[in-house]
């Protein structure tokens, strides 16, 4: 995508942004909703990375969490249920120069949009994807989602959810071309920020599952984990998450995990208790689909014309005189 020279010059002049430059309106999420913590972390990240608001796009589907873009003072695309990922892919393909973020819920991503999720991992387009996983449908008022624990009573499972919960991390880690998988929880903001920052800096499809509380429908769901730091397994590594001394005092249950170790990542991902938090997998060498597919050719009118005329030539029946003169296929 070509840009004007003046635009380039403008960029040399480094702009500075404040938090307010990314804040738009007062979120209408419930008090104590994990979405608020994610929003705060993301706005901080945008400020710290000094992202140009007009060059940043948040794409979402439908659900509580998908209201996210409305609270960012960037470009946003609040799409339709389940389709945030293919919309974001189109954005990225057309405009690799944009910073693309995706906010999607457990229903949006893991249920109605599950096909897109699998394929988005495979495309590995450069974007940061936040799976806001509260294990329940909130906006439609408490129905079981694919990540709801077995036995959870909801409006559609009054006698308890029938099936074991789908594990977003193991699914993601099982797909070819996976390049970045991390897990955070909304109640440890410092780690949430660090993980989102690492995800943003990873070139490829960065998938961050964020376990978050729903104070309205599942107010007690994560109480045991909140009150017992031992039930969080912090993953640390010099190439992964580096745990601050302060945090280490509280969260003593840690594992040194090399994010390049896919097999160990899969093992960690399959554990639900303690909840693993950190960067499970990172592979910077997986090619990005938009890089594979896009040509950097400047699409001038002459260039398109030349391509088109060459195609016309293939199918042209020339008048006899012209054919004798031109003989394009002789």
């Amino acid at each position: 995508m070509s840009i004007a020279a003046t635009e380039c010059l403008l960029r040399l002049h480094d702009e500075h942004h404040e938090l307010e430059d990314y804040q738009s309106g007062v979120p209408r999420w419930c008090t104590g909703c994990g979405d608020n913590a994610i929003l705060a972390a993301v706005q901080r990240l945008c400020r710290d990375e000094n992202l140009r608001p007009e060059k940043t796009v948040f794409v979402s589907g439908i659900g509580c969490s998908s209201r996210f873009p409305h609270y960012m003072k960037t470009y946003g695309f609040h799409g339709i249920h389940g389709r945030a990922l293919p919309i974001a892919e189109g954005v990225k393909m057309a405009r690799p120069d944009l910073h693309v973020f995706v906010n999607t819920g457990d229903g949006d991503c893991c249920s109605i949009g599950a096909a897109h999720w699998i394929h988005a991992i495979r495309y590995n387009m450069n974007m940061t994807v936040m799976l806001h996983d509260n294990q329940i449908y909130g906006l439609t008022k408490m129905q079981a989602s694919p990540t709801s624990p077995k036995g959870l009573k909801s409006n559609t499972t009054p006698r308890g959810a029938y099936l074991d919960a789908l594990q977003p991390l193991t699914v993601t880690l099982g797909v070819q071309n996976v390049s970045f998988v991390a897990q955070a929880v909304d109640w440890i903001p410092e780690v949430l920020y660090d993980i989102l920052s690492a995800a943003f800096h990873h070139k490829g499809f960065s998938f961050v599952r964020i376990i978050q509380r729903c104070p309205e429908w599942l107010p007690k769901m994560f109480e045991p984990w909140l009150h017992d730091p031992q039930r969080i397994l912090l993953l640390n590594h010099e190439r992964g998450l580096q745990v601050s001394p302060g945090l280490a005092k509280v969260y003593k249950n840690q594992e040194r995990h090399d994010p390049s170790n896919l097999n160990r990542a899969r093992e960690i991902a399959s554990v639900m208790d303690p909840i693993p938090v950190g960067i499970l997998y990172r592979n910077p060498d997986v090619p990005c689909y938009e890089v594979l597919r896009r040509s950097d050719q400047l699409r001038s009118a002459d260039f398109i014309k030349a391509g088109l005329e060459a195609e016309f030539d293939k199918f042209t029946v020339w008048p006899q005189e012209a054919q004798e003169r031109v003989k394009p296929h002789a």
Partner: protein
Amino acid sequence: MNETSLLQPVRAAGSSALSRPDEKTVTTLTEHVVEVISDSGEGAQRCGQSLGGIAAKMGNGVWTVEIIPAEIRPPARSVAGASGNRIRLGARRVTNGGNETDLVVAFNEQVLLGRVRAHELKPGCIILLESMWREDSDPKIAASYKEVHGQLVAAGYRVYEIPMERECRTVVADARRGKNMFALGMLCNLYSLDLQLGRDQIALTFGKKDKSVVASNVKLLEAGHEWAERNLDFKFRIPAQRATEPQIVVNGNTALALGILASGMEVCAMYPITPATSASHYLSDVFEKVGGVVHQAEDEIAACAFAIGASYAGKCAVTITSGPGFSLKQEGIGLAVMGEIPLVVVNVQRGGPSTGQPTKAEQGDLLTAIFGSHGDAPKVVMAAGTIEDCFYSVIIARKIAETFNMVVVVLSDANLATSQQPFPRPQFSEAWLAPPVDQSAVPERAKPYDWDASTGLARRFIPGQPHGMHTLTGLAHDTLSHVAYDAESNEHAIHSRSLKLAALQKTLKTPPVFGDAAGDLLVIGWGSNKGTIEEAVEGLRAEGRKVSSLHLTFLQPMPPGLKEIMQRFKKVMTIESNWSDRPEDDLIDESNRRYSAVAMLLRSRYLVDVDCWSEVRGQPIKPNTIRRVILEKLGRP
């Protein structure tokens, strides 16, 4: 047939006289419909396409139609397995596939039987039939051949038994693979076509392969030509006029893909579906050469969403599909309508509903195109009427989509998709191309949906434009793109989106009437029936009947002036390839009759008593059928 008989002119079973080859009279024709059919993979399609190409170069009018079995590999020698091509050759420009077949080359009697049973052959049709089956080592096959041959002769067809494979074996080792070029040589002879053009065609077709492949195919071509010259007792000539301007010979799907190329669009997202996919095959091959991307998405919904995302952030994008995929895309189309994101959706219609008839032609998706997606979702719908239209429609669609920030649906169908007809080589215009993506700053505090009160139009803010930041949403929204459920905002937005259709309608021209501006009957059609309707109308007008026709390219909005046109005729009817209830059915009366799509639209919009006639036989309506329908509607003069 024995060896010596080969030296004598082959006498058609049922034909009266034997003539010496040197005494052959050349019959001049105004047109002929030729078929070449075989089992899948025997090359009848290539033979037919080549014949069309040669005739086009001669300057004949040409329309070729693929004959496609529904299965990938139907069993050999099966009645349902006919694969090949139907070529209508004319002294003048040909606008459709025409009536039943006049001459058929068949590689076995079973595929031929399929065509006979489908009533695709004219009474007395000339049949050039591979005769090797008569001597087949499998007695069942030999018996079947003899039985069918006997029936065909008894039915009055002029059957010539031709030992094609045996003759080919005198030239090449693997005769089964070269038979199609032998057949092409025969056809070149029978229609007095320039054999050198045949050689050129082979060089073009096999140019990428080894020179020996070209050489052996040329040998087969020449052998077929020579054999027909020596052994067949008839010959035709269809006068031709060489075009003075270069012509493009492609099918409708290739024309669509060329249109995408020429429109300056950069992203095409699709999912494989018949009969749309061949457009994407071709586009996949060439789009990258001009910096475009064909994205094969994981499903139809994703393809639509991907195109919407690309459009939202850049130039208008396109998604190509057929019926079932079009249904799947409807929610996404509604999103594009709601967000006012330009989008081109191409639907190469097939037979429906559900999986329906994937390879067959039908015009059953018009109402879905106009009214599809829930809620009030106004979008532009246009239909290509010719192969040439397929090319230009996409360019126009892109332009409208970006001017009005609307979804534009381009309807084609399985008939146009696979048919070939020459049209003048387009002269490139820079005006076809999409403008560069606007990245200039928008005025501070400008509203993303600052709808113009009279046209409903609003400037689109594209990511990258400073001060334009907003969140596009599929929820009801106000001028700031804020979610708004209040009554005023909702009506304001729906009102504005609807006005855009009216604004476009004011720019459309009244379509020309084919024939006189007034008369006894006006026949209205759309899509690929254009050429057929006009041919039938032209024929009847030459006989003094007061019938005219009107072709609609824009179906939503409809162009101005239609009511005035219709009012100048005593009767108005549409002819369409979709279902309409038969008035003669016991249960059907005026209170319950379901009309064809355009008839229903015209009746409801203009309060004109528009009748309709339609069929859903999976193939283009024939000119003779339309002629009969018109005559019935006109009544006795």
